[in-house]
């Protein structure tokens, strides 16, 4: 069983996107809970899959996104909490 906190996920997301955030004039501390990475132009659908792969590799978990509210896939806070919630029951990352 793995414990992953939403805060850890948030940090991983934002540090991996540092260059993109800087490009739109933002720093990690500017990012509110309801920040939408897609509509704010930080990432596209390709970026989302990269992010998911990064998170799964980093925490060694295989996350099932079927139960995530679709619109929350690109919103930092709810997305991070979903990972936190799912991590304990998740299988190890198996690409």
């Amino acid at each position, binding site marked *: 069983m793995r414990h992953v906190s939403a805060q850890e996920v948030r940090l991983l997301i934002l540090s991996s996107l540092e260059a993109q955030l800087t490009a739109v004039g933002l720093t990690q501390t500017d990012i509110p809970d309801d920040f*939408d990475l*897609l*509509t704010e132009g930080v990432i596209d*659908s*390709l970026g*989302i*899959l*990269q992010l*998911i*792969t*990064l998170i799964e*590799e980093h925490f060694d978990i295989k*996350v*099932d*996104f*079927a139960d*995530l*509210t*679709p*619109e929350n*896939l*690109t919103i930092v806070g709810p997305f991070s909490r979903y990972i936190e919630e799912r991590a304990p029951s998740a299988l190890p990352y198996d*690409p």
Partner: protein
Amino acid sequence: MLALSSGFLRSCELFPERPAVEVSGTTLTYKALWKRAASLAATLQRRTPLGGPPLTAVFAYRSPTAFAGVLAALFRGHGYVPLNRTFPPERTRTMLERSGCRALITDSQSVENLGQILEGIHEELLLILPETSDTEGLANRWPNHRIVGSNELDPPEAWSLQPVSPDSIAYLLFTSGTTGIPKGVMVAHRNVRHFVDVMVHRYEITEQDRFSQTFDMTFDLSAFDMFVAWERGACVCCPSQRTLINPGRFIQDSRLTVWFSVPSVAAFMERLGTLKPNCYPTLRWTLFCGEPLPFAVVENWGRAAPRSKLENLYGPTELTIACTFYRWNGEKSAGECEFGLVPIGEPYPGMKAMVVDEGLDEVLPCEEGELLMTGPQLSLGYWRDPETTAAAFVVPAAKNDVYYKTGDRVRKPVGNGPLVYLGRRDQQVKVQGHRVELSEVEAYLRQETKTDVAIALGWPITPNGAGGIVAFLDDTSLDAEGLRNKLKAKLPAYAVPRQIHLLPQLPLNPNGKVDRKALLNILERMP
């Protein structure tokens, strides 16, 4: 011969209170959508500057105005020219300029991008903003254009039906040209009518059906969603760009009965774990088009939507949306797949196919060649570009009809067998004088790795072809060197990828297809 809008108008009479479109949280009944469209059409009729071609631009994105705008152009007797604010503004400006449109309809969300589009356009345009009431600032900003806001629209009753010739343009759709300047494909009313008639009969569409709209209007497959649904009083369900990222819940919440997308969307859903057994029980039809359909996608989708029949459609814009179909059959289809790809099947009723060699002579059954097609869906050619039209629309020897050269390579079937797609003609590259079929390299890559998508490119580009082959896969856990060794056993040395790059995901273009140009850009930036 009826105009393209005739199906919508008939459904307005039969089903005025049924939903025609669900978009941005709004449901528009046939009656409500008619009112919006007729009001815009009346405004166009009265106020479009004189001169200019019978075309109206619709610069709107997944909004009520996008749908009303398309219908308004048709009601007005014009063809619609879809423009997309998510495209680079310069590209959109080129399309607007090339089309020569004198009127443009836009939604509130696209207004802020309008400035970049209008830059350098001096001819007077009629700009209709049905979602914007305060237009004073905009009128000051663009004094040489005529601006009509929501308060100044003509009433729907002022619209009168315009007769259109079956040969007039229903839509002008820009596709990428080899020279970098987009080519406008002129699709006539009679082309789309034939397509719509074939589809509503084949899929037995009724007013109970609910269609997905995964395609932007700048992709001609969106015309299927709108006009096939409206022909029979069905509803088009248009998700937002955000919802489309992960569309599983949308299929369920919207109780879709007809799903239509590129296969990549299904591959994405599989990655997110949203193709669970029987999770889409409402679907009765699943249609894929726009790129080769991998067998694996069909298998995964089939589990998630077991009640849905599935078809692979094929067709270039020049032949009006789609012109061949292949019905998936659980018993025999696996045996008809080649290189793990589903066949493209047979021509639509009324359409004729030829498979030819480079001299445009028909090849023998079982041989490969370029697919040429003709029939009622053969479009009018390229807008204001007779040279490019003449090069692609040809009369083969011993034939009397004009055929469109698709640039796609297929295998000529034996007897009643299906056409099998083998790749683009221009995906052949010469490496050290040898002809290399990129689709063949890709097929081996998919076979060895069991992945859905693999891309091979000729690289570096040389005057007579390419120095070698490089490949991209969307799985970072693979052993690139081991894979290269396996391919050495399958392919001649010159065709074996010299490098295999592993990315978490391959870049997609606005239409959801793998963006080969973006991959070439990645290669260019590599040291």
